[in-house]
């Protein structure tokens, strides 16, 4: 006698098991296709199609000094923001990590509280603080008896200060996550083996948070490449970023071909940044396994 397979009537719960559950990917994939793949493809087509005369817009982006300067400006500001975020964020995250739980929550919330204010008002508030007659300059001038105010606005320093302000919570949260994954006993174990607090930190704790450092840096860098408001408010004429020039090229002048080519170039830079992160992270992984 052969067993007769029992085939239950169809029921929606079957969509929760096996290959049928892949159906839940459809809305997400559709959104990505419509909102991301299609526009990017379009962008790519426009950039390839938008030749000015016989000159490819890519050639213009990669040879004309204005675009190179804007790209390098954007990259330097982003890199500076990334480094300052790490230098300020790591000690902050470490302090939060070692605080007793109730205080940890209070400090963490105060870090996140800055998100209650939008990027625009935050950028403008830096003008109040950093301007020639601002709070910081008045304090510096009276403290060090300076005749001239220190220029902190409308230059790269101002842009980096403003962008760091926006990106710092991201960095702190990423680092905190990495610190939470460090097993509790490793630092005490290092102490029992003769390591003082500093060496236990540098030789045991810090290397274990390296994945978080890399992830935080990558995220800060890539996100910073796309800033518009902060450099527009706090940067000078020399701090034009790619996003600002893109807006000018496309909305202002209608030069869609070169705008598209510049956009694609920035996407490639982002992908390169991500690739560096992935390869570094993978080296770390191989070391672990």
């Amino acid at each position, binding site marked *: 006698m052969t067993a007769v397979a029992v085939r239950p009537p169809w029921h929606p719960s079957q969509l929760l098991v096996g290959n049928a559950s892949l159906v839940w990917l459809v809305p997400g994939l559709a959104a990505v296709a419509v909102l991301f793949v299609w526009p990017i493809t379009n962008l790519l087509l426009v950039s390839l199609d938008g030749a000015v005369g016989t000159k490819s817009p890519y050639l213009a982006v990669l040879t004309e000094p204005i675009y190179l300067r804007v790209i390098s400006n954007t990259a330097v500001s982003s890199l500076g923001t990334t480094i300052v975020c790490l230098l300020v964020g790591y000690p902050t995250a470490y302090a939060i990590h070692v605080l007793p739980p109730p205080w940890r929550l209070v400090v963490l919330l105060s870090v996140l509280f800055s998100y209650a204010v939008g990027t625009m008002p935050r950028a403008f508030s830096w003008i109040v603080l950093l301007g020639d007659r601002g709070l910081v300059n008045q304090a510096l001038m009276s403290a060090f008896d300076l005749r001239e105010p220190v220029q902190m606005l409308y230059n790269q320093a101002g842009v980096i200060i403003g962008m760091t302000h926006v990106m710092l919570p991201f960095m702190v949260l990423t680092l905190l996550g990495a610190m939470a994954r460090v097993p509790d006993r490793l630092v005490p174990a290092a102490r029992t*083996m*003769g390591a003082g607090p500093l060496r236990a930190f540098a030789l045991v704790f810090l290397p274990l948070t390296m994945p978080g450092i890399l992830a935080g840096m990558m995220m800060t860098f890539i996100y910073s490449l796309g800033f518009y408001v902060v450099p527009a408010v706090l940067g000078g004429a020399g701090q034009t970023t790619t996003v600002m020039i893109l807006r000018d090229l496309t909305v202002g002048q209608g030069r869609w071909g070169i705008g598209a080519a510049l956009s694609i170039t920035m996407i490639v830079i982002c992908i390169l940044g991500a690739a560096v992160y992935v390869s570094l992270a993978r080296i770390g992984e191989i070391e672990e396994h």
Partner: protein
Amino acid sequence: MSFAGSVPGRAVTDPTLSCGAPVEVSELRKLYGSVEALQAATLSVRQGEFVSLLGASGSGKSTLLKLIAGLERATSGSIRLGGIDATSLPSERRGIGMVFQDYALFPTMTVEANIAFPLRMRGVRGDEAKSRIARVAEMLRLEPLLARKPSQLSGGQQQRVAIARAIVFDPQILLLDEPLSALDKNLREQTKGEIKALHQRLGLTIVYVTHDQSEALAMSDRIAVMDHGRIVDVDTPQALYARPRSSFIAQFLGQANLLPVTVLDRSATGCTVESLWGALSIGAANVALEPSAGRGARGLAVLRPEHLRIADEPAGDGRPRVRATVVQVLYHGCETLYRATCEASQLSLALKETRPASRSYALGEDMQVEVDPAHIVVVPALQDGT
């Protein structure tokens, strides 16, 4: 591992090795908020001695070890290591080796770098470091694993790395925090022997935390039994097992039948108690009752299951007997565990039969249970409410 000299006690074979340092803990207390994790613990571990801190979780044994290691600060009391006051010394200046429960190996470093870490912290480098690493690697069979990362090792291998790392700089005191709890049974038995052999070979002082009474019994020179943040008793495994001073110790170390008895008569040479078997006389060495407990006082008789004998032969040889009905049989190969209930008193007895030739009893069968009064210990009855 096969070490020359399985002589009990210390057998230092290498004269260059350290010989252990005493650990003296006095009136040590630790409060976490208002919770008293450790209440005025006093314990003196002699040079080269193997002492286990045995207790259930929350008994304060790990707290005491952390205080000795300097991983926690004592609320009051003092710790002396090798005769030096270490109460407020940071961990790194106590010169202890420590093996953590989850091994706490550094995941980013190779096995070799892990073992080298304590040497590096002491400025021992180059050939000196190499030869020390080679020595412990040989001792713990780690030579083929030196280049690996901890995540590439099995649990047992990680454990040996943790031990190697703790002893590589020849500490005089080795602290072990439940080092076997993450291993499977066979490996546990093997590692027990290895730790014991290591102790005999290196002669260092060992403080060993465990919740497993068989580990404590097998390895220790002395056991400190802990409960609710207190050291309840400290003695050799033999003394604690054969002559427990309280029903808590009797039940915590090994299996025990605890049967209510009443004192009929008490004298300098011992006492007579009324028990399941009628009147029994107990030698003074086996009486742990309060000195004030005289006639009429209630106590508990401690009877190990292996000291109860099933009497197959019909006629008694003078030893007291009682009739009981078998309610459970657990066959273990080398022994059979019976649980039997006495009809009259409704008391339940656990018996261990190890004689292979003896006849087996089935559920519901009656048996005669014989007792040897020489093995009975009388301890105070539990107070109401405890």
